[in-house]
């Protein structure tokens, strides 16, 4: 979810190079390099760095390697050509806007180290494995004994000795144990200091020079924005979202883009998800998830309609409101403020339902009382 504070929006996921900057700040040995937005300066950089180089698309979606977003180059010409190729790519529909140029490392082995928030234990938990370079969930599924876990007491915080214990359980000893423990400890400090939800080094390479973070993943808890101001960004400057998603963020609405043609607006995440399910049940394909939240007003409703109609190929709209704290008449007034070009099917119940009915009926909208009926009508109207 995205929090809105003025026009600034927290972008939770950091790009590889952004996360690596924080690793460097904390003294974690990290493979860094230069970040480019075009190939203009690449030759000068190659002159400084030498060859070969590795070129990595800076994107926020996974599967970058498989999509061809990581390339090696041995000559200047190859580097320029491949850099241009990457900068021209789209990975999972998102254009690549930045590129990280690094020196390839001499990899002897790849480890995995990361911290996650464990919902069940209500603690931040370290996961570490000697099986790095692959998805940790895959390791968890196929070789769970290869993963070392450590729960961090939220009141006491991570302690250095715990990191040494983990490093030892991974099979390390002596100097390597100290280096690895230090990396784990620093990673845990970042997790805490920066209010991260997830931090990951995958792979953490073993090289002849020691450990080195080859990739970096860092997701900041958006609810911590007020104290993690360094991560505030204007939503316009981000890569992670589509234009409609960005507009929704700016309006403070929870929006998820989907493939179908029935637009869905509701109040409360659970009810909107259920609306999606019901539309699907009747053979419809939801175009989106849009939650105006509990206690929404007319303005929120109007904005929601504006945003939802930005979607191409939209054929009908299903509005599902259960008025608990939300007042139905307020929402009805919002609906009247924006007239979409596709039919709108409204289901409203609860607080001030009667007033809402009158408002909408006068404006020519039909009101449904049950979720199923309204969903069915929206599917048929699409």
């Amino acid at each position, binding site marked *: 979810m995205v929090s809105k504070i003025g026009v600034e929006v927290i972008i939770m996921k950091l790009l590889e190079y952004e996360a690596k900057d924080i690793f460097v700040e904390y003294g974690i040995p990290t493979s860094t390099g230069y970040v480019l937005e075009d190939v203009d300066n690449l030759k000068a950089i190659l002159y400084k760095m030498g060859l070969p180089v590795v070129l990595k698309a800076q994107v926020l979606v996974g599967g970058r390697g498989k999509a061809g977003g990581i390339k090696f180059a041995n000559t200047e010409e190859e580097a320029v050509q491949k850099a241009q190729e990457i900068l021209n790519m789209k990975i999972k529909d998102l254009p690549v806007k930045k590129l990280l140029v690094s020196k390839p490392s001499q990899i002897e082995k790849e480890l995995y180290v990361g911290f996650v928030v464990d919902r069940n234990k*209500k603690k931040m938990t370290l996961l570490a494995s000697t099986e790095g370079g692959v998805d940790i969930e895959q390791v968890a599924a196929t070789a769970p004994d290869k993963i070392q876990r450590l729960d961090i007491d939220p009141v006491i915080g991570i302690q250095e000795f715990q990191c040494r214990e983990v490093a030892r359980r991974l099979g390390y000893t002596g100097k390597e144990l100290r280096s690895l423990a230090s990396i784990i400890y620093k990673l845990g400090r970042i997790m805490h200091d920066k209010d991260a939800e997830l931090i990951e080094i995958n792979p953490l390479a073993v090289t002849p020079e020691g450990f080195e973070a080859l990739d970096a993943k860092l997701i900041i808890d958006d609810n911590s924005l007020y104290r993690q101001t360094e991560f505030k960004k204007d939503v316009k400057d981000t890569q992670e979202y589509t234009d409609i998603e960005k507009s929704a963020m700016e309006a403070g609405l929870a929006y998820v883009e989907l493939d179908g043609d029935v637009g869905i607006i509701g109040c409360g995440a659970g009810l909107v998800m259920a609306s999606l399910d019901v539309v699907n049940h009747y053979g419809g394909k939801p175009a989106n998830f849009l939650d105006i939240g509990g206690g929404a007003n007319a303005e929120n409703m109007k904005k929601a309609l504006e945003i939802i109609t930005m979607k191409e190929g939209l054929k009908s709209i299903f509005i599902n409101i259960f008025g608990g704290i939300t007042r139905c008449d307020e929402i009805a007034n919002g609906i009247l403020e924006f007239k979409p070009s596709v039919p709108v099917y409204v289901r409203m119940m609860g607080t001030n339902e009667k007033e809402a009915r009158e408002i909408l009926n006068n404006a020519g909208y039909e009101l449904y009382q049950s979720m199923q009926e309204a969903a069915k009508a929206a599917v048929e109207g699409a």
Partner: protein
Amino acid sequence: MAILVNEKTKIVVQGATGHQGQFHSKRMKEYGSQIVGGVTPGKGGQMMGDIPIYDTVEEAGADASILFVPARMMKDAALEAISNGLSPVVCITEHVPVQDAMFIMEYAKDHGADVVGPNTPGLISPGKALLGILPPHIFKEGSVGLVSRSGTLTYEIIDEMTKGDIGQSTALGIGGDPVIGMDFISALERFEADKETKAMVMIGEIGGDAEERAAEFIREHVSKPVVSYIAGRTAPPGKRMGHAGAVISGSSGTAEAKIKALNAVDVPVATMPHEVPEILREML
């Protein structure tokens, strides 16, 4: 009976003088909840209608607390309630940083307090007490205990239940955040122990494995009938569906897995919300 809160529970409202706090303090009191005071540091000594405002929780002499404080003040306010021995401590506020939530939960565990939420509509023991922002008029006193990760979806289902003359012992929203206090298991455990409760409804959604773990618990420890509904059957992976906790990560957290786990322990899962009371009626 009912669980967690009843007509005798003395309740303090932290963050009582804010917009939300004022509105809901009045509403809870009107419903019959024993609101013994509000707390807003710096406003002690004032009266808000007939509710006295205090600077600190310890002055109010309450048993339980409900919090409407801003997210950034939640940790300190919740620790205050817990440190004063209050339970349950119901955190309505959304957008509480997850590290603060973890700290609160660890502190609560050490002090033996129940925390509900954050990002929860709270709870209601119909006819006895409202400790939350749920719309009380849709509830009806009865013998079905309900626990849910969702707010409005709960109202939807409660409304169908009440219209079908199926009343509730207590209905509890556990909150939509990844890290929350009371979870399905702790609620089911109390409903199982509560003499008044004859059956339970569990409303889940995608993300995490709370429903799967609840299914395990039901197999071992729950003798009363349980009906479930899981929202997000058709949600795509990797997207947060409104709630911070409602996200399918890779292959984990899908509705499918949850439904399978529940069916495996003979918990029927409704396909659509309005089917919940129908199934309940068959089982009661």
